[in-house]
């Protein structure tokens, strides 16, 4: 069952065409790794999917309905498509629990007790119940990102977008976040994952797409793209990531 259908997506920033025509279908339960060099449009693609950036062309269909441009509609769309950022973007003036509850209280208008119960459940899911009363300033990078994931999960998204979730983390903290993402994958969460962690992508993804020049240059199963890449640019990209070894 297709959750999200993207057709003819294009995005320009001034003179710079970042996305030059992308078609993509995301089916329920799929885990798509999005790879590519810097500037290949990976983040922009993700940000277009939940309309954090407005596409210049193309249509995006969520659950069979084409998404329009109106602000009120987009707010609803973003409840169904969650996003986890490279810089976490936690709200510093709220505790971890407060951060996770915020969407439920303000957007879903849940009662405080319901929101709190749900938030505690999500924090438990990412292993941070004991940090519920802590402010982001007192959390490590890995903990902050896990809270960010819990915050996104609390909204019950049909699709989760991960925009380089571990790129801003110290190496020893990367593992705890990848562990949470892997657990979500095993539970059947539908996700798009922009990442440089190629080994992780290989083990977790059901499909890999490689972006270059603003289009999908190559796509296939992890085995096909990462182990037996057909196109030259894909091979060159993988060769540069020497630490990727199977």
């Amino acid at each position, binding site marked *: 069952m297709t959750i999200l259908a993207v057709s003819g997506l294009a995005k320009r920033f001034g003179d710079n065409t970042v996305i030059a025509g992308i078609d993509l279908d995301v089916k329920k339960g799929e885990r798509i790794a999005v790879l590519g060099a810097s500037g290949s449009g990976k983040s922009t693609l993700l940000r277009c999917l939940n309309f954090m950036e407005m596409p210049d062309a193309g249509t995006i269909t969520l659950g069979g309905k084409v998404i329009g441009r109106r602000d009120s509609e987009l707010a609803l769309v973003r409840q169904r498509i*969650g996003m986890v950022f490279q810089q976490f973007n936690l709200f*510093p003036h709220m505790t971890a629990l407060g951060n996770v509850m915020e969407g439920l209280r303000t*957007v879903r208008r849940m009662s405080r007790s319901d929101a709190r119960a749900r938030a505690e459940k999500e924090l438990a899911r990412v292993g941070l119940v004991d940090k519920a009363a802590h402010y982001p300033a007192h959390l490590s990078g890995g903990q902050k990102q896990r809270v960010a994931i819990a915050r996104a999960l609390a909204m019950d998204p049909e699709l989760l977008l991960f925009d380089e979730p571990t790129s801003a983390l110290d190496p020893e903290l990367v593992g705890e976040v990848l562990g949470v993402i892997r657990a979500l994958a095993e539970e059947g969460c539908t996700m798009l994952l922009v990442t440089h962690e190629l080994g992780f992508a290989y083990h977790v993804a059901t499909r890999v797409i490689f972006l270059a020049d603003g289009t999908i240059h190559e796509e296939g199963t992890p085995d096909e793209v990462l182990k037996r890449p057909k196109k030259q640019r894909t091979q060159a990209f993988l060769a540069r990531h020497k630490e990727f070894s199977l």
Partner: protein
Amino acid sequence: MAYQWDFTPVLTNADLLAQGLVNTLKVTGTALACGLVLGLAFALLRLSQNRLASWPAGFIIEVFRTTPPLVQLFWFFFALPLIAGIEMTPFMAAAVTFSIQSAAFFAEVFRAGIVSVERGQWDGARAIGMTHNQALRRIVLPQAVKRMIPAFMERAIELMKTTTLVATIAYADLLFAANEIAQKTFRPLETFTVAALIYFVFITAFSLLARRFERRLAVSGESTVH
């Protein structure tokens, strides 16, 4: 012949001075409170995409920053009643003038504070489905306000000094009371010296409190270590 200091006339009129001080605080407090609310409104208007909203607000702000406060006060006290056909007491004129004037200042502080909240906070808020207004209200403004507290305290202190201008329109603030007493007792030296000292003590005390409060904010606040 050396001057003979004599503070007793001042002391006998201490109640007048006290009442004057109360009135000074009344005007300052009113102007501060109204100025804050109005200032936020101005700031949001200035930030609005709608030209019809941002331009008039911008105009008012510019006018109030480029004309002398005393001229504004005179205008509101002498001119406005004739234009609008309403009665203006000195207190009202002072309250209106200094409220709008403070608002013009606060608007810029609010605007700078809101803009200084990093873009990622808007992203985080929108990504969980918040509308622009929800994001502003729940996420951006609370963070902006914390950063603006030093500027607010600074403005409050300035306002306490600026409100002495009301003495020129015969509002019985501390300075006006001092002037009255000085004329009555023929002891301007003692009277004005005492008045100056009262202002000094008050404003210095408030300054120190403000600085202590700022330091406490800085310690507990956002020492974000990304």
